[in-house]
């Protein structure tokens, strides 16, 4: 802006918009903005006109109509009498649950592989390299299909578990049997696991727009309370240690506070497990974890873990060798050096790219359609879209939802990122 003083203060001429560096960038920006607005207006206008030609209006009221179809996996109550909106919610939860477990497993596995890949042990290091290269370089869809096919073609059919009278008389064993003390059955359709049941449940609270399962929330509240009290105990122990140099014994208090209230509550509610048993065509009772869910979660975790491993490795390599040497000089063992010195510093490098891996994983859940997993794409963007013929509405809404999920994940992760960044003290 040193130039500004040299410019004679003469009157404003139109040509200055182009030739004067003070105005030129504004001119360009305004022109581009107008062009952009016109392009958007043209797109909108075109869409509206074409919809009108086809005799369709833009209308979301179908969301409140009866859906009429069934969904295999439902985390909230849903029947074919529910609305399309309810189906959307069921699909959304199915998306989120895969994303949630996928992110957790991928992170754990990714960190382990990333660290091991730097191991001095030649064999382990090479094995991890092979893992990373194989998973990174084969399309995710193939991994999903592969896990699904393996799960569904190598496991027995439900009827293989059946013991007929003749077999019992002949003392024959069925072709397949349950696992883990006869509580879990893996069939070619899914994994049947025991379901938690309560004799004296607290019922549900109807809030009008949704119902709350009070039993679930009560247990969650007690667990959260226990964890909070435990932290208070540890904090006061630390305070005392700092003040007096003596750390009071807290382990039995912690165990008591962490477990006793929850166990008491469970007993009071009459908690017991419902074991799946073969009835008719399938196992009844318990919870069915369909193979589509398992396959999708496994494939997403393994695939994303390969990328996370690379990010972790790069993060660790970014920490100068001097840090390790200094830690060794202080007599820290390699394990502790890694967990106390290297990883905390590496986190700062790791987290930003990690966020985008989480976002990728979440968006990639939409590939579940390939194994008949009814997520958001399968319900709102699949069956609802097809049965109502509201392509544009469904697609826009679905994009909006994926966008919001991504923005929420990245803003949460950014908060976490801020908390681990170097703080100037």
């Amino acid at each position, binding site marked *: 802006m040193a130039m500004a003083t040299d410019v004679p203060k003469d009157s404003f001429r139109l040509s200055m918009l182009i030739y004067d560096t003070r105005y030129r960038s504004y001119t360009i920006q305004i022109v581009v903005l107008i062009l952009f607005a016109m392009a958007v207006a043209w797109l909108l206008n*075109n869409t509206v006109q074409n919809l009108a030609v086809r005799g369709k209006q833009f209308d979301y009221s179908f969301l409140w109509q009866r859906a009429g179809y069934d969904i295999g996996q439902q985390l909230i109550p849903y029947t074919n009498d529910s609305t399309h909106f309810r189906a959307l919610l069921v699909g959304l939860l199915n998306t989120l649950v895969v994303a949630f477990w996928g992110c957790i497993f991928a992170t754990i596995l990714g960190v382990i592989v990333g660290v091991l890949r730097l191991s001095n042990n030649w064999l382990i290091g090479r094995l991890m390299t092979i893992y990373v290269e194989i998973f990174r370089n084969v399309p995710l869809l193939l991994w999903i299909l592969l896990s699904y096919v393996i799960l569904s073609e190598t496991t027995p059919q439900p009827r293989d578990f059946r013991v007929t009278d003749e077999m019992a008389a002949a003392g024959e064993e069925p072709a397949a049997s349950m696992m883990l003390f006869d509580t879990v059955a893996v069939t070619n359709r899914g994994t049947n696991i025991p379901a938690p049941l309560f004799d004296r449940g607290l019922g549900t609270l109807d809030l009008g727009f949704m119902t709350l399962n009070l039993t679930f929330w009560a247990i969650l509240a007690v667990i959260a309370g226990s964890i909070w009290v435990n932290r208070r105990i540890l904090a006061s122990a630390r305070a005392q240690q700092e003040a007096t140099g003596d750390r009071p014994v807290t382990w039995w208090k912690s165990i008591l506070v962490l477990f006793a209230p929850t166990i008491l509550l469970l007993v009071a509610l009459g908690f017991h497990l419902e074991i799946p048993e073969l009835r008719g065509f399938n196992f009844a009772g318990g919870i069915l974890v369909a193979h589509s869910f398992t396959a999708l979660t496994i494939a997403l975790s393994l695939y994303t873990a390969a990328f996370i491993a690379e990010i972790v490795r790069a993060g660790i390599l970014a920490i100068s060798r001097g840090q390790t040497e200094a830690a060794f000089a202080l007599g820290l063992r390699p394990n502790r050096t890694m967990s106390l010195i290297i990883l905390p510093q590496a986190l700062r490098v790791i987290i930003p790219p990690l966020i985008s891996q989480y976002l990728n994983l979440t968006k990639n859940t939409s590939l579940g359609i390939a194994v008949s997993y009814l997520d958001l794409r399968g319900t709102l963007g699949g069956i609802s879209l097809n049965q109502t013929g509201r392509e544009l509405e469904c697609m826009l809404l679905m994009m909006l939802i994926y966008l919001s999920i991504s923005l929420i994940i990245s803003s949460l992760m950014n908060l976490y990122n801020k908390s681990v960044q170097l703080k100037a003290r």
Partner: protein
Amino acid sequence: MKKTVFFGALAATTLLAGLASAGTLDDVKARGELICGSNTGLTGFGAPDASGNWAGFDVDLCRAIAAAVLGDATKVKFVPTTGETRFTALQSGEVDVLIRNSTWTATRDSELSLDFVAVNYYDGQGFMVKKDLGVSSAKELDGATVCIQTGTTTELNLADFFKQNNISYQPVTVGDDSEAQRQYLAGACDAYTTDASGLAASRATMPDAENHIILPEIISKEPLGPVVRHGDSQWGDVVRWTYYALLIAEEKGVTSANVNEVATSTTDEEVKRLLGVSGDFGAKFGIDNAGFKTAIAAVGNYGEIYARNIGEGTTINLARGLNALWTQGGLQYAPPFR
């Protein structure tokens, strides 16, 4: 000022685009090729053979339309569509007509802005199970896992049927017929449900066809027929009357073998009009006056098409049943050609 011109031009072009897409008949003629939405592969109804030539009951109707409009039954491009993609393909203009086991329903006629112009196969939804499952009625399927194709009417009927009978099931929603078959054969579902004709066609391709049975219950009405975009009645008429021409031909005993001879010798006035010997009906529909004759010569009448692709004696082996002519106690009935 400039802006108004710009938007005016814009409105005009979009309007023109709208109008242009309304005249499918002219589009097809100008292109010299009919684009027909078909199955991804359902033996007997629409599937490419080993050398890539499409054949089947629905495919022959496409060929008949191409013969009537373009004078050549081979000038058809088949675009495979799944239950999920078929209507979008039609609405967006990717295909000119959709002939693919599609059920005529109120929603599809109204909300989806489509027009079903005829019913070329009266069908209903059935269930297929393996014989060794020991099931003889669909009502015994309580608790079963059922494979179902997404984007279909059958998906909705299935939910209704189980609800009405107060029994439960576990749906496995699949994308197309081949995936459904794979899952069913692998034992991932106890039963596979779709149109009974589709079940018969699927069973015909299974290596152990005799080990599978189709249960007696037919749980819905599935009138399958050709579909065009709503608002293009001229094209709708051509498709509808090409189909009726094939029906009338069967009723009057006109076959691909004798059509030329009949055209010269017949004394039946309706047949004369149909074959373009008298009157100018072809021209009124906007096609060659002998267009319907060309169609019959190319693919035969309805009965011939049926017998060749899905009739008794073929691997699909479907009796005419509801699809017999009205004169034989069936439902196939064409309005008079006058």
